[in-house]
Each structure stands twice: as C-alpha cells, then as structure tokens.
C-alpha cells in the first residue's frame, strides 16, 4: 500500500497503548463479533507469539474481549471489557498457544460459543499500524483484510456459485476489487467466498445473494 490516505498517517484514533497490540486486537475481536453476533455464551482466546508474551502490558486481552463484545478500537469501554463481559454473563479465558511457525507473531485464535451452542472459530493477525488479516474461519483458511467493504459468503455447493455472485454484483453495479474462493479440505459441500468491493453494499444486493441457491450465510464486513 503506497497510496496512503492522510488518515493512515495521522490515525487511527484509538485507545492506547499499541496500534498492533491494542487497536489491531480490538479490530480482530470486532471481526469475530461480526460472525458471532450478540448471543455469545463464552469466548476463549489462544494467544500466539508476541501476543502471548506481552498481552497483559498492552491491554491486548481487554481489547480482544471488547472487540468480541462489539466495541471498536476507539471506544473508551475497551478498558472495562472484563466488567462488561461479566455484566452480560459472557465467560472468557486467555491462554498462550503456539499456532505454528508460519503464523504471524501477533496472532490469536478465537473460539466463540453462542447461546444456541453453535461455534465460531477464527484466527486473526495484527500486521502493523492497526491493520489486520483474518486468516482462518470455521475450518477454512482464507484472507480477509477488512480494508474495503467485504462480502463473505458461506455456501454448500461449488456449482455455479462464482458466476452467480458476479452476475448479482454486476446487476447491482458493484466493482469487484478482490475475490477469493476457499473450500474445506476434501469437501465440496462447504466453502467460503471473500469478495471485496469498491462501494457500499446495498440491502438489495445482500438479499439477492442470500436467496441464491446453495448460499448458507452472508456477512458484510
């Protein structure tokens, strides 16, 4: 990225002390919240590398939890994340865990259990300056940066999905900046598409995607 906006330079507005260990952590947590929603029973954080080593001093734990509870990186309530989780009856734990040599040093695996006992499993990396990448979602390796409006589509068939999606996007006049297609290992009936687009995604576009044959779920980031 060489075409920095002035707000990449003077910014982000954030809760301190560290753009990578605090702001980035809150953003990863918030991304998990997008997938899990508000009905959360418990959340376990597995901290890797530098996150594991220094999370207490940087408030990484509070920032992650606050993000999962739906707060952004500039929200004052980051500091009170533990108290707010207790009030809402959300159980949480933090553990150090080696997620592998290839994993970015500032990474975390988040396992969320919803009140209906379904699970969201996500791995995110804080790659510097508050920027993040989600690299794993519910058993599927992928990349979501969240830099542009992003549509995440979960589907249970591979047939006709790509052309179906591109047709809908064209009809809604949305430019695709980046598109990737991920399948669970050895499975044809479980996959995820990540589509970054140039503009705000309308409700109409989301409805069209949601009702397309083979689509299980749609998320907008």
């Amino acid at each position, binding site marked *: 990225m*060489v*075409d*920095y*906006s*002035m*707000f*990449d*330079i*003077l*910014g*982000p*507005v*954030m*809760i*301190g*002390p*560290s*753009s990578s260990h*605090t*702001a980035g952590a809150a953003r990863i947590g918030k991304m998990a919240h997008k997938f899990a929603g508000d009905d959360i029973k418990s959340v376990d954080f597995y901290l890797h590398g*530098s996150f594991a*080593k*220094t999370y*207490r*001093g*940087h*408030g990484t734990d*509070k920032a992650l939890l606050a993000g999962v509870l739906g707060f952004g990186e*500039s929200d*004052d309530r*980051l*500091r009170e994340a533990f108290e707010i989780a207790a009030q809402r009856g959300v159980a949480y734990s933090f553990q150090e865990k080696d997620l592998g040599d290839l994993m970015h040093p500032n990474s975390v695996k988040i396992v969320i259990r919803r009140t209906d006992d379904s699970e969201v499993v996500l791995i995110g990396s804080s790659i*510097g*300056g*508050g920027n993040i990448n989600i690299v794993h979602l519910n058993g599927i390796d992928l990349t979501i940066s969240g830099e542009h409006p992003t549509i995440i589509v979960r589907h249970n068939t591979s047939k006709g999905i790509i052309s179906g999606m591109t047709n809908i996007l064209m009809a809604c006049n949305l430019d695709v900046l980046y598109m990737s297609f991920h399948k669970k290992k050895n499975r044809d009936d479980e996959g995820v598409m990540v589509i970054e687009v140039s503009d705000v995604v309308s409700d109409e576009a989301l409805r069209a995607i949601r009702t397309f044959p083979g689509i299980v779920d749609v998320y907008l980031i």
Partner: protein
Amino acid sequence: MTYRFTTGEELLEICGEKKMTIAQVMLAREVEMSKRSAEEIRGQMLDSLNVMKTAIQAGLHEGVKSVSGLIGGEAYKLSQYAATHEPLSGRDMFQAMTNAMSVMEVNASMGRIVASPTAGSCGIVPGALVSTGLRQGKTDEELVEALLTASAIGFLFSRNATVAGSEGGCQAETGTASAMASAAIVEMMGGSPAAALSAASFTIKNILGLVCDPIAGLVECPCAKRNALGTANAILSADMALAGLETAIPFDEVVDAMYRVGKVMSPTLRETAMGGLAATPTGIRIAERIFGPGHGRG
C-alpha cells in the same frame, strides 16, 4: 491525477507551480484519491485535533497510571514543578514537553489518542505542534491546516522509508513524528514549503540512529521521555528553519539515509526488547516483575 506526489522534490514542484502550501496540496490529493469533499476531510481532521487536545489535558491534573504501572503521573509532576519554578527550558518549551508526556500517559493507560504516525510517538504532534499553535493563538481551522501539513510529511516517510520501530528503530517513529510536527509548525508560522522540508530534515539529522529498546516491550519507558525529546527537537528545528537555516542534505536524501540506517540496525535494537535499555539488568528485572520469570529477555 495532478496532486499525487511521491517525494519531497515533487511536492515542492507542485507547491511552486500551483502557488499552494503543503497543506493545500495534501488536501487536494486526499480529495482526488478519496472522492470526499474538502469540508468532510477537514471535519475528520478536526475530530482528530479534538482527541489530541483532550489527551493533552488529561494527564495534567490527575495521576494517570499505565496498565503495567511503569509510567504515570509524570505530566502532573511537571506541571506542579512549573507552577512553583521557572523552567530552565523556557515556559513554552516546557509546556509543549509536558503536553507530550501527558498524551503518552493517556496512551499507556488505555486512553484515546491519535496515532501520529504511531501510538508510540503519539505525544509529539500534539506536544510540539498543537501546544505551539495554542500558545501562538492559532484557531482550530489553522491547526487543522497544520495537521494536513504534518500528514504530508508523514506520508513521505511512510512511502519512502518506514515509520515502524520494528523496521527502523526509534528514529523512524519519534523521528518521523518530530519531522511532521516541525514542518507543520514552520508552515503554520508562515514559512515556505522549502523551509518546512528543511525543518523536517533537521529533526531527523539530529536523532539519526536512535534505537528502539522499550523496557518489557511496552510503549512506556523510554518512549514517553523520547516523546518529550522529540517535541523539543521539532520546535528547535522549526526555529532554525524559520530563521532561514537550510539543510545541506536534501529532504529526500535524509529520509533515505534514515531508512538505510534502520536497515543496518541490529534487530535487537528494533522494538524486540532484546537490546539497549531493555536488556540492562534492571530492564530485565522490570520485565520479569510485569510478565513473570523467563519473560525478561525479549
């Protein structure tokens, strides 16, 4: 795409051709790139200015403590001292330095700040630029304009070198912040774009080679005091440029020199907390007190 620049030289060319300030060129560039209106962009920058002003005040009146307990209360102590003594560095300089420390304490205590350009260097632009502007009776509109200048300088460092301590050491973080503040002060006080770039060059030349060695890996010690130093550096450099002193080495070459110095810096001196002050016996003891035995070395 008329306002895109990638070097200081190109920036000065555009400023000269169009008879514009650095701030005006940066704003035009942002309008061009983002398709947002100038008014909307200025509005967002005003929000950032207000976050800076609030953080400047926060540490002055109450004892702020960092999450680790390593720093906190310094800005309060400084302002108490200034209430009963005549600071040796002069009132305005002392106030600017105190304000920078206040912002750093707010950051370390999980308060709200503007990364400028990073969280570890977030005290310098508010300390040097905003404090000087306020002392000089500048309006919010003028301060927003100055922040636009600062962002243009920060962009050139991000584009052509680095602003990350992990890549370039402290010179890249607090150094860039000082360069941003210094150039913005010069333009705010009526200096030319060339003088602004001279000021930015002075700040880097003054601290070239400064290592990043945070105790326990936390953005606290020595970071807070280096923000105080960076603030003084920015104001001194601005004065030198406003007096007409010129940089012997052009701005773009200074940026490149900083980048190359960062590249040859040992990784132990680039934010890993494995060298410098972090690796002293006391530095290691502090780290172990915060994180437990075995966490003292990097």
